[in-house]
């Protein structure tokens, strides 16, 4: 129960400042020896295995640490395990083995109820296919996580409106998903993901279904969020999108093969620091 109460207190803080522990701030994501296997025996598919032990030949599992305020792009071709990793990071799926500490909480030890609390307060998830609730206006859509968190209606409305204004949809609050363009839908999804002030924003190919103009709109929102201190983990296979990240991790066959830092953790994301060069390179 301790992590639960702890998570409630954090969620109550507006735009939670990086937590100042006695030493360094705890990493937002700490993944140790993470392995995910689908199926059994010969038919087993090793979605995430990490490097292989040269002596025993056993999989050692994926290791990944993401610091507060970082902007990580996870890249890889289909089947590289990046979506599996994302689902585990988002507490939507459970690893076969290994430890996953989210904001200092050992997720594997949580029950169903606590997991839903973690999904609600700690993680903002943005999907490739938007995944908005059908027939629900944008404002109600964004209010939904707050409703699940038990926030009072007036407060809920205020925060949802603020989040929608932040993503530039102040004039589309009463529109239903089928009345919004793809870019607008994805920005509603981003607003919904960040309205609970989560520890991190997880985006699974957020621009995969968008045209270039909408892609720029959504990425600009993500850049601004990261500049404001929000940790972002984003999956993509487009270099143009990865260019926005401070750090790029490449996955091949369930292993991290490449980990490049493009910008320091503290400070603005590359796109905002070097706007001119990005526009030049992007077109």
């Amino acid at each position, binding site marked *: 129960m301790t992590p639960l109460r702890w998570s409630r207190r954090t969620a109550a803080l507006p735009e939670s400042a990086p937590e100042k522990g006695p030493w360094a701030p705890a990493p937002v994501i700490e993944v140790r020896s993470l392995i995910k296997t689908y199926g059994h025996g010969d038919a087993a598919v090793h979605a995430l295995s990490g490097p292989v032990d040269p002596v025993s030949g056993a999989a050692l599992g994926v290791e990944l640490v993401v610091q507060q305020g970082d902007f990580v792009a996870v890249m890889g071709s289909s089947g590289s395990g990046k979506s599996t990793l994302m689902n585990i990071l988002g507490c939507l799926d459970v690893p076969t083995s290994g430890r996953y500490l989210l904001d200092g909480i050992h997720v594997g030890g949580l029950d*169903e*109820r606590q997991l839903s609390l973690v*999904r609600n307060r700690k993680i903002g998830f943005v999907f490739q296919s938007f995944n908005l609730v*059908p027939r629900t206006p944008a404002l109600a859509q964004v209010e939904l996580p707050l409703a*699940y968190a038990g926030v009072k209606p007036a407060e809920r409305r205020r925060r949802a409106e603020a989040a929608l204004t932040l993503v530039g949809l102040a004039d589309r609050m009463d529109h239903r998903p089928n009345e919004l363009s793809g870019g607008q839908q994805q920005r509603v999804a981003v607003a919904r993901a960040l309205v609970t002030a989560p520890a991190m924003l997880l985006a699974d190919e957020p621009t995969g279904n968008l045209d270039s103009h909408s892609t720029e709109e959504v990425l600009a929102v993500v850049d601004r969020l990261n500049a404001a201190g929000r940790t972002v983990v984003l999956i993509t296979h487009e270099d143009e999108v990865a260019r926005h990240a401070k750090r790029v991790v490449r996955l091949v066959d369930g292993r991290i093969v490449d980990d490049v830092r493009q910008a320091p953790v503290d400070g603005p994301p590359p796109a905002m620091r070097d706007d001119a060069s990005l526009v030049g390179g992007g077109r």
Partner: protein
Amino acid sequence: MSLFQTLRFAFGGLAANKVRSALTMLGVLIGVAAVIVLLAVGNGSSQAVKDSIEKLGTNALTVSSGGGFGGSRSATATKPLTVDDARALADPASAPHIESVAPETTTSQTALYQGTSHTVSQVVGTYPAYFKASNSKVTKGDYFSDDDVLGARKVAVIGSTTATDVFGTADPVGRKMTLGGTPFTVVGVLATKGGTGFQDPDDVVVAPLPTVQNAFTGFGSLGQILVEAKSADATTQAQDEITTVLMGRHGIKDPTALDFRVSSQASLLTTQADTNKTFTVLLGAVAAISLLVGGIGITNIMLVTVTERTREIGIRKAIGAPRGVILGQFLAESTLLSLIGGGLGVAAGLIGSHFTIVGIKPVIIPESVVGAFAIAVAIGLFFGGYPANRAASLRPIEALRHE
């Protein structure tokens, strides 16, 4: 997550599939309405029996000729009932619990009046005591008197059906009609009894016994003797006294070999009321089955809804909907279905019970209304529980991948 919020989501879910929701509600509606109406019909028919018991007079006993089932076998010869038997029963010394005795002979004759012909199913020849014992009252004119009986006058008191069929709108009192060739003067018209049996109790002509015997049946045996006990409580003693007196007069020693039968109208009708109860239970069972089918309809629709909205459930779970909220949402939907369906069913049942169904005026049992409604809602909760639980237990990633 407030209750209001949950209900709003549930309404939204139902509104998304209006036709489907309406049809499911219709299932519950029919179930609930069937329970209410069918039980009301059953109850109405027993009520009608109860009413006719009261109309007949609970004090009345009928003595008829012939043994009971198997009784006549051992009797050497069946002695018919006679006027002397009736006279013996009227003796207060041997039968202190008997109030009055009316010997009866019954026939069927055709009545004629100014070219109108009508077959009267019951022409009763009797004494004036008949009217009180059989709970027959005149509304127009008067009863015939003991003098009419002694003088064997050709007077008659007729039932209300006979009055309208023979005389139409004209006032029959004082008019003469021909009954089986004999002219009778109508002196009174009986109050309408109404009834549920095959025979219309209002299609009757009551005349003095000697008159009817003289004209139609002859001076032999009687059809039956109508006996009125002093009170409803005294019917058992009166029955014993009748048996004792008639056994003495007919010379029967063995009480199991009687050549006559004493039956109380009330006991006959109680048997009929019991039959009615069985009838009501059967009707109730049929209605309960239709309610159950309605409940299965809810389960079916909720299962479809859950499957169809698996993705939505995944989204809701991904943004942190706890199990309880998902469970609550789907339970609320199924309960709303049954609540609205049940409410409309109660309305339909109450309206339907105002109509006369197969000749029976339904009488609503208040418990059936409350019960059917409560069962409908409980069915919604119970049958909605399984799909709702299935929805709530889905793993978010599996739900999201569902297409």
